């Protein structure tokens, strides 16, 4: 559609300009920060150099105390090397004698050091008997010098050189986080553009496009709508008025004709015949009059779900990168259960509640109304987040997390219902793209920002941020239209019955798809992304921020690949092949850890996992409709999909459990590898099972 693309071009251009501005601003902030860092950190580091130096000096004096000649000390450089290892900001250390000649040195000597050491002022230091040190800038280093004085007998001077570049290194470490902020900003920009201007613009332009189409097909029926008071609104009003004029003119002509027909007789009537025929022609080609009261701009209301959903999901996603580490901190030993498994408990419980709750919450939200259901859900989750932030130990944490899960399930289901209610057959896909889009952007922004927050302001405060985010989503939900749309055609959704679950679980075709593709995909997702990555990263001495970056890589892959594979899977390749390839790629991800255990390899793992999941995710659920037509005929569409979703979500809950058990058995790396191998196996099995002609896609209906 021309208008959509047009709008996106505008968005990207706007986002580009905004990004350029943001980059400039970030550069300015960094520049100022550098000045502050330099000014404040250097004296502090000099102090530290003095303390470290004093410790080295004490060692030297201990050695000379045993009668070893000062100039024939052995292994001084080795001591220096040990100092460098502990203090990377020190670049050079040297001991000179009282003449300023270097006896021992290690590291990169700054230009002008030799002259500096012979400077009478510096040499005078050797004769000091107090605990003192002097700092001076020499070349690229700050040199801190202190006396080595054995009970009044000057031996020499100890110099410690601080690399002036260390400040830059410190700032460079921030840079990676700043890049993450940039990426997140970009997504925020697009999301906000869509929220603040886009929803109206898009619906306005869409309306315009439809109007054009309508008129092209000869439909000039007047629509009685309230137009927004903006550019597009004005434009639409212009068109409306043109149509109105046309209608008035038509009415007038018709009236005149009818009038004349009524009064005319005989030849008169004959003379009017061409006009009447023309009118008939017009009636065939065009439609005039007033259009039936259209449902009030559904598309716009549909768009309005995006912001609150985004805000709410973001609250949960923020916690992804550090939740297990937080649980680890609150850990209470439960006899008989390995702590590794206990850490996975809150995630498992969360997923389980979401999985089991969704079918029931669906019909509940239908009864109480989507908006109200979302409000209640968001409130419960807000309490849950606040409680998690203040959790005393693992036990109440489990309770708070359950509240979060309940709220999450409510909002998720209700938002889904909201979209369902407002979309028809033809725009349902578009509606869900919007729904998934909001969630995906939240998964990009959430974990990375959450990791940064957790590392800097602590886990509890970060959960506080999530609570605030959930609270904000309440405000956004409150702004949703209060009028509920109840499509009469669809019957009330219901939870799948036990009988149906049993029947489907025993069904080979259904289970090939669910048990070999859908569930393993979810198991590896939650097992790796929500459990293993955050814990493993921290266990090898890295930070939650790094875990957040990893999860962001995954999410970015999803955002980039899913739309691509969704459109491709219809066209080029059989859907089940996409699922096969996706599963096999996911299954290979963890095997990368066989090569090396560096955290860089972990980036590769999440990259492949993201790629694999993205390839298969869109095709998976479509396959259900494609391959289980027989089952759908027997049990009904809702039941089949209900059971499918239920099992898929149980996979979500199983992920952390399986991963934690694997960690107990084989450690983190082993768990990564084993989990991947499992998925790889399922992928291969799925490929073999779907090979037959039985699995040829059904002809298009």
């Amino acid at each position, binding site marked *: 559609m021309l208008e959509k693309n047009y709008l996106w071009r505008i968005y990207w251009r706007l986002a580009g300009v905004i990004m350029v501005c943001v980059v400039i601003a970030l550069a300015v902030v960094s520049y100022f920060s550098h000045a502050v860092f330099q000014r404040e950190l250097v004296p502090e580091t000099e102090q530290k150099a003095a303390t470290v130096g*004093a410790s080295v*000096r*004490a*060692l*030297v*004096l*201990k*050695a*000379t*105390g*045993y*009668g*070893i000649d000062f100039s*024939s*000390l*052995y*292994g*001084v450089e*080795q*001591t220096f090397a*040990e100092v460098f290892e502990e203090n990377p900001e020190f670049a050079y250390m040297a001991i000179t004698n009282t003449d300023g000649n270097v006896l021992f040195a290690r590291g990169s000597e700054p230009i002008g050091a030799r002259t500096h050491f012979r400077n009478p002022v510096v040499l005078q230091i050797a004769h000091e*008997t107090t*605990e003192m040190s002097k700092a001076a800038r020499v070349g690229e280093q700050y040199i801190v010098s202190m006396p080595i004085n*054995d*009970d009044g007998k000057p031996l020499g001077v100890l110099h410690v050189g601080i690399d002036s570049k260390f400040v830059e290194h410190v700032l460079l470490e921030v840079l990676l986080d700043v890049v993450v902020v940039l990426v997140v900003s970009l997504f925020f920009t697009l999301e906000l553009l869509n929220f603040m201007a886009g929803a109206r613009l898009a619906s306005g332009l869409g309306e315009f496009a439809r109007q054009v189409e309508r008129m092209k097909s000869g439909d000039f029926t007047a629509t009685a709508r309230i137009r927004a008071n903006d550019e597009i609104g004005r434009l639409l009003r212009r068109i409306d008025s043109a149509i109105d004029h046309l209608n008035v003119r038509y009415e007038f002509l018709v009236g005149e004709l009818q009038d004349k027909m009524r009064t005319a007789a005989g030849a008169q009537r004959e003379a009017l015949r061409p006009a009447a025929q023309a009118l008939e022609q017009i009636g065939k080609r065009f439609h005039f009059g007033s259009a039936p009261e259209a449902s009030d701009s559904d598309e716009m209301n549909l768009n309005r779900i995006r912001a609150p959903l985004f805000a709410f999901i973001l609250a949960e996603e923020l916690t992804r990168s550090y939740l297990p580490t937080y649980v680890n901190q609150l850990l*209470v030993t*439960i*006899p*008989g259960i390995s702590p590794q498994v206990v850490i996975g408990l809150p995630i498992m*419980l969360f997923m389980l*509640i979401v999985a089991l709750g969704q079918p029931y919450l669906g019909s509940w939200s239908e009864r109480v109304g989507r908006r109200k259901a979302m409000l209640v859900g968001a409130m419960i989750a807000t309490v849950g987040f606040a409680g998690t932030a203040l959790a005393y130990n693992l*036990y109440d944490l*489990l*309770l708070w997390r*359950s509240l979060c899960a309940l709220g999450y399930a409510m909002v998720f289901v209700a938002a889904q219902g909201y979209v369902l209610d407002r979309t028809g057959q033809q725009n349902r896909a578009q509606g869900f793209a919007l729904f998934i889009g909001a969630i995906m952007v939240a998964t990009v922004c959430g974990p990375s920002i959450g990791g940064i927050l957790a590392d800097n302001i602590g886990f509890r405060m970060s959960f506080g941020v999530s609570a605030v985010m959930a609270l904000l989503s309440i405000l956004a939900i409150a702004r949703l239209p209060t009028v509920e749309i109840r499509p009469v055609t669809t019957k009330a959704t219901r939870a799948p019955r036990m009988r149906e679950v049993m029947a489907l679980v025993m069904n080979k075709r259904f289970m090939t798809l669910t048990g070999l593709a859908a569930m393993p995909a979810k198991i590896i997702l939650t097992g790796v992304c929500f459990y293993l990555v955050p814990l493993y990263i921290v266990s090898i001495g890295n930070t939650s921020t790094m875990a957040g970056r990893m999860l962001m890589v995954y999410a970015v892959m999803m955002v980039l690949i899913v739309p691509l594979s969704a459109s491709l899977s219809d066209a080029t390749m059989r859907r089940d092949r996409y699922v096969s390839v996706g599963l096999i790629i996911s299954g290979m991800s963890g095997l990368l850890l066989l090569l090396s255990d560096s955290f860089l390899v972990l980036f590769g793992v999440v990259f492949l996992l993201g790629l694999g999941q993205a390839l298969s995710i869109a095709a998976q659920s479509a396959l259900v409709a494609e391959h289980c037509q027989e089952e759908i005929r027997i049990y009904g569409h809702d039941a089949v999909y209900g059971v499918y979703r239920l099992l898929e979500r149980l996979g979500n809950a199983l992920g952390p459990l399986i991963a934690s058990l694997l960690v107990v058995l084989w450690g983190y790396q082993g768990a990564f590898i084993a989990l991947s191998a499992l998925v790889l196996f399922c992928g291969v099995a799925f490929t073999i099972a779907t090979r037959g002609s039985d699995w040829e896609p059904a002809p298009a209906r």
Partner: protein
Amino acid sequence: MARTFLALIVLVVMLAADGDARAQLSSRPYRIYAITFRGMTDVEKGFQDYFAARRIPVQITFRDLNRDNTRMPGFLEEIRRTKPDLVYTWGTGVTLGVAGTYDNVDPQVHITDIPIVFTLVAAPVLAKVVRDLKNPGRNVTGVFHVAPTETQIRAMASYRPFKSIGILYTPTEQNSVVVVEEVREVSKRLGFSVIAKPLKLDANKKVTSEGAPEMVRELKQQNVEWLYLPPDTYLGTQAKSIIIPAAMAAGIPTFASTEQLMEAGALTGLVSRYHAIGQFTAYKAEQILVNKVPPAKIPVETLTRFALQVRMDVAEQLKLPPPLPMFNYAELITAKPEPPAPIPPAPTK
């Protein structure tokens, strides 16, 4: 459902806490039957000190073999009669006397039903006390006292790096032969050469120190940088009078693998402090008595940190002062036998 689960967990925790409290209440001291080989040593002091420091009530019955193996059956009989909670055995001989080798246990003779903790067994696997250090697999565990060969080699290198070392050893002592083999293994990995010379045997196939000084001089000519003294019983008796003086004359630094060799005048060496060994043995005993871990599952280990000793007078003679970082952790032995101050006063003012 979550609530039920929660309640269940709370219940389990309460039960566990209750059990803990009961253990605290029991004040009956643990009874330990200890057999030493040559009277009380620092090991026993460390053993007792550990229990005292941890406030674990123990009642230890000490019995000394006094180098006389004929006393053993009497001790075993007493053990059977008094049924102590744990048996402590000092050295390889005593340990084998009480527990037997793993492939030759006679339940009529050896103690099998009472946990045995041994100490000061130099090579538990070689002596067939246990099959696998990590997993003893029988009702026996304990502590050995010789630092792993690689640790010793690394300690030597940290004093002065080398490309070649010499070893003198007794070819008839299996223990020494094994260590020499281990040194060769390590040399392949770390990249240095080993020149190992077996001591000569006399007409009666008995080892003799004859020709040892010449061998040391030969080693010097072959450019060895260190003389490594393996845990060798015969060598230990000859070190002070013959071998170390020869090395000093040739200007080769000596590295001692045992405290005895260190006392004989070696420059430096990595030794286990008997007191620490005793404490570690007590720690193993605590695992069995208090934590109720079966001995079969407690690994046989040695200390993770050994005492690096340096004779400063020897260092001065050889003009090889210890490297500066070593002053932080080494135990520096000065010529005059003054006890090293545990916390040397900081020389700074």
